């Protein structure tokens, strides 16, 4: 399967994109700028109402732009109608044409482009092969399973060699097992086609598993753009940290001069980092070491004494719930090999290497607030946001 058959990656440049719906004060998308490199797998990740889908719909041309620009390759497409943008699109509900067979569905974009019949036959066959559905060309979509339908939708969206493929929560309607199979399929297609992918999801695991880079959306803006590793290991904001996995959060103060972080009477070493902001200190649960004996704590570690609340065996590791001295809760993932029984009520030493911590900006709302509660938000209720951040 050559990359020329199904198109080549095109760069997508989104600059200062804003969408304000009539009669609303808060813009749905507020001054978003991000560039997707040619052939890159970019994911827009965020809770519902964060502006990720609206941004995608503006790229696709379904939603008018209030201000800003979208450039595909060298062409400014900001004012073009969807049918002249040459972008493949995959929808959450498949959106296959029910009155056409699988083959007719896939041939549809080629017919719109007045492709010769012989070439249509050849390319439809190739596209069906790409998604391993060669046997299903004569069937109607209603005779296919959800996963098969979405694969037909993928084939249809790339058969005309689009400039990029836009995927709007394409796996959201599938059950868990099928979702992971289709994730593999999507990743394989990206590798084989070399096409630019823009993938929208609210599922952080999916984003981590698939993406070259992720743009984390919140309240109509982008919080951070980076590789999955960067976002997980070096989150720029508390929102990013809490949206991507769990964290132990300490709301203290950074002393830049002494490279120290003060929290509840503890003083920890804080080596300088690229983003040297004052804010909350975060430690991922799997970076936390628990020791009963304080002598066993490595000398260079930062640490504190915590109370064990519970110890849950999860197969690959133990999850130990902790109560911090200030009453807040935290957790540690302890490898089974290193685990011993921690009983509820035990006082243990929790420690971590200073390079495993990150200090992130906390929004103006004050300690304990997720950025969703920041003043510029107002779209999604805070309840739904914290629920998303929690899982």
């Amino acid at each position: 399967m050559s990359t020329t058959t199904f198109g080549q990656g095109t760069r997508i440049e989104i600059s200062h994109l804003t969408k304000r719906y009539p009669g609303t004060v808060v813009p749905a998308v507020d001054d978003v700028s991000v560039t997707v490199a040619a052939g890159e797998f970019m994911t827009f990740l965020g809770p519902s109402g964060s502006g990720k889908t609206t941004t995608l719909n503006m790229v696709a041309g379904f939603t008018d732009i209030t201000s800003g620009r979208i450039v595909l390759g060298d062409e400014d497409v900001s004012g073009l109608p969807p049918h002249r943008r040459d972008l493949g699109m995959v929808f959450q509900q498949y959106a296959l044409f029910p009155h056409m067979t699988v083959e007719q569905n896939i041939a549809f974009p080629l017919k719109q482009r007045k492709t010769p019949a012989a070439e249509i036959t050849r390319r439809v066959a190739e596209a069906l092969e790409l998604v391993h559905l060669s046997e299903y060309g004569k069937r109607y979509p209603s005779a296919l399973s959800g996963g098969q339908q979405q694969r037909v939708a993928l084939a249809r969206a790339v058969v005309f060699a689009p400039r990029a493929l836009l995927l709007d929560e394409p796996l959201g309607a599938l059950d868990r097992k099928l979702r992971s199979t289709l994730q593999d399929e999507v990743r394989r297609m990206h590798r084989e086609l070399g096409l630019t992918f823009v993938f929208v999801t609210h599922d952080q695991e999916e984003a981590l598993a698939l993406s070259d880079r992720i743009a984390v959306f919140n309240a109509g803006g982008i919080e951070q753009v980076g590789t999955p590793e960067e976002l997980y290991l070096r989150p720029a904001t508390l929102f990013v940290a809490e949206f991507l996995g769990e964290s132990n959060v300490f709301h203290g103060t950074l002393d830049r001069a002494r490279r120290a972080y003060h929290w509840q009477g503890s003083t920890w070493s804080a080596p300088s980092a690229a983003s040297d902001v004052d804010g909350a200190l975060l430690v991922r649960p799997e970076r936390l070491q628990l020791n009963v004996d304080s002598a066993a704590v490595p000398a260079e570690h930062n640490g504190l004494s915590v109370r064990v609340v519970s110890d849950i065996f999860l197969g690959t590791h133990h999850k130990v719930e902790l109560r911090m001295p200030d009453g807040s809760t935290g957790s540690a993932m302890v490898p089974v090999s290193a685990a011993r029984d921690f009983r509820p009520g035990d006082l243990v030493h929790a420690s971590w290497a200073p390079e495993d911590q990150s200090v992130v900006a906390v929004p103006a709302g004050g300690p304990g607030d997720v950025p969703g509660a920041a003043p510029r938000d107002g779209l999604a209720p805070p309840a739904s946001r914290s629920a998303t951040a929690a899982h």
Partner: protein
Amino acid sequence: MPPRPARRHVPRVLLFLPALALLAVAFGLPLLQIVLRSFTDPDVGLTNYTAMLDDGITTTVILRTLRVAVTVVVLALLLAYPYAYVMSIASPAGRAVLTTLVLLPFWTSLMARNFAWLLLMQDGGPIQRFFSLFGLDVVLLGTTVGVTVAMTQVLLPFMVLPLYSSMQQIDRRLLQAAQSLGAKPRTAFRKIYLPLSAPGVVAGCTLVFILSLGFYITPALLGSSQQSLVAQLLAIRTTALLDFAGAGALGTVLLVITGLVLAVIGRFARPASSLAAATGGVK
């Protein structure tokens, strides 16, 4: 087969038995009697049918009725399609208003509506006065055109409602998908929306056509005896001439025509009805 599911089927059959019995006694038997009588009264044979062919009026009236029915169907479809489309994309409040406007005629008596048309169409009535402003002399009362116009209005809800019900099942994202695949909005409508709304078109047209064939009040009030339709002819045969066998023959012919139309539509509409199931499955 385990015996349990089989036992559960028994009460279900019983559920529609009363309706079936009523239909058999009040509809099936009389129908059979009418058909039988058309072949046996006064003599066994086809005399009633040959008489119909020879009288020079009946065939003309049947053809006229078919022509009027087809015209009414076409007019109603042209009026109802855009209306149902707007209904399907309107806001809930707008939809409520549009639905009420469609249903309003159902809440008024058919007689009242026909008399309203009578007043509008009469000599020197509002319609004539309106057209006379342009120097046109329009006579609608007592003409087939007048009957057609009024029948279209009366039967419009039967076209709008099936159309709307099939349109509101169409996933509008299909149109977005078509556009993202390179179809102009007009092409997307023609290639995607129109075929998917076909079940509603078929249902609406069938309903309006069949109702038009046997329509009585409107042609009786607004038409004329020179331009009468099948139902008027039937009424004359039964009430004035007391020619029950002849009326039975005419009724049988009407029934056969209706059956033929339904059979033809059924052949073409089969893929469309499986389509409706398919669109329902998308949601």
